[in-house]
């Protein structure tokens, strides 16, 4: 039985020798438990870092959105005064505002809309003419030219009784403060997340490399150049890191897409309405996706680089004076 096997082996060897190149095993051991664990750790860290990145870009985009939406619009309010024709006052205010430089358009919020706005408080079937309800004009600004608020305000109060200009300054100031606090906070969280990702990846890679010390030593002792050894490990760990970070990053991107789709498909849903009011469309912008892709490559490179440095460090300890052993 064994003899037959031996003969087969011998025959195969001869056949092999005649055939082309043999398929070599990789110099770096392939499927070790340590490297599977490393891939998993990298995948998890890449996922968490990507989610953080997505959330931070979402929040900062939204905060910037609030800022620009609000600063692009001011409101003129006209309080009803006895003996003054409201329609005339509205027309006058519209004319005055529209003449101003920096104003894009002025629209009167019509009776119907005003009634709808007040409906929750005053009930349906409201006749605005019977009630002293203030009316609004929406002034859209043309962001390029600065509107002189003070001049507009004084011209309005001089010519239209009961008119006042609300430039949302107070709101805007608060929002700007809040938005920048949110952005800074998000960025700080992202930096901490990145730092822990870097540390985890570095330590996990070192852990996976620990089992390879013997391989490094043998390669060194059979006369391999340091750069050759480092190159072998670097290649191996780059692929490993790429596998892990691609899995984690792609999973995060899928999450972004799913959540974005859910938010935009449920516009009718009051819960989703709330979310949309706060976060716009709840979709991670292009910056978020690009960031995740960059993150994937940075993590993979980091893994490769750590393995390279580990090789250099270990080789450095191999040929030493006996006194240092």
């Amino acid at each position: 039985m064994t003899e037959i096997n031996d003969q087969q082996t011998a025959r195969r060897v001869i056949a092999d020798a005649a055939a082309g190149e043999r398929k070599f095993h990789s110099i770096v051991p392939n499927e070790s438990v340590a490297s599977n664990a490393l891939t998993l750790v990298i995948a998890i860290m890449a996922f968490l870092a990507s989610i953080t990145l997505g959330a931070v870009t979402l929040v900062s985009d939204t905060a910037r959105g609030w800022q620009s939406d609000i600063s692009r619009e001011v409101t003129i309010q006209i309080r009803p005064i006895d003996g003054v024709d409201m329609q005339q006052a509205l027309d006058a205010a519209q004319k005055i505002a529209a003449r101003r430089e920096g104003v894009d358009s002025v629209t009167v919020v019509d009776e119907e809309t005003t009634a709808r706005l007040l409906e929750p408080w005053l009930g349906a079937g409201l006749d605005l003419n019977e009630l002293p309800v203030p009316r609004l004009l929406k002034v859209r600004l043309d962001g390029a030219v600065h509107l002189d608020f003070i001049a507009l305000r004084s011209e309005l109060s001089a010519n239209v009784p009961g008119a006042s200009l609300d430039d949302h300054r107070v709101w805007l100031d608060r929002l700007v403060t809040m938005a920048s606090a949110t952005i800074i906070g998000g960025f700080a969280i992202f930096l901490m997340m990145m730092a822990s990702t870097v540390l985890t990846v570095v330590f996990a890679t070192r852990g996976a490399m620990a089992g390879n010390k013997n391989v490094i030593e043998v390669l060194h002792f059979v006369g391999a150049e340091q750069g050759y050894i480092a190159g072998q490990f670097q290649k191996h760990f780059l692929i490993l890191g790429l596998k892990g970070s691609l899995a984690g990053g792609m999973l995060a991107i899928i999450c972004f897409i799913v959540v974005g789709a859910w938010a935009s498909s449920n516009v009718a849903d009051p819960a989703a309405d709330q979310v949309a009011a706060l976060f716009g469309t709840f979709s991670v912008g292009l910056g978020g996706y690009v960031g995740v892709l960059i993150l994937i490559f940075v993590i993979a490179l980091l893994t490769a680089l750590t393995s390279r440095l580990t090789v250099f460090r270990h080789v450095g300890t191999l040929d030493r004076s006996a006194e240092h052993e």
Partner: protein
Amino acid sequence: MIRFDNVGVRYGMGEEVLKDLTFEIDKGSFQFLTGPSGAGKTSLLRLFFMSLKPTRGLINIFGHDSSTITKNELPSLRRRIGIVFQDFRLLNHLTLYENVALPLRVRGVEELSYRRDVIDLLEWVGLDKRIDAFPEVLSGGEQQRAAVARALIGQPEVLLADEPTGNLDPKLAQRLLRLFVELNRSGTSVVIATHDLGLMDQYDARRFVLNEGRMQIYD
């Protein structure tokens, strides 16, 4: 080829393990290195192999002062030396064939150009039937022979073997010794560290005897 001048080695802050070694190994020479366990045979081979630096004294290897050899020169000098480690140091994830071919593979030599040599060498040490086996499934003696084959594949100028017959039966040991002698006749210097008096009696060669850190030479 390799010259020692007043070489001493001390591990850490301990006593000197090797003291005042002064000798020369000539091109094409053959010597046994012997002495009790812990006498410093492995340490001495590591000095030859430049994986240990002496605490004092001068070592000259292939015309280079060992203390001035840089990291970058080391691999090319080391390729001129073949070494069989006492603990073999085969890579368990590579087949025997790949282990033996490793010194040439890391030099970037084309595989087809050495395949015949690797197979011949494995045949020589009686392992031609285990060519695709992994070291872990081999017996100690088989691993030892594979380690010998790996040391020889690069056609070194010096062969250092640490207890190369420690796991072999007398017949195989004798066969391996014949291989070393033949290698020596073709011009390679050979240093064999061994406890095995029977082995040394089979071949008349220079003997380095280490005892308590000092060396006596019997020509």
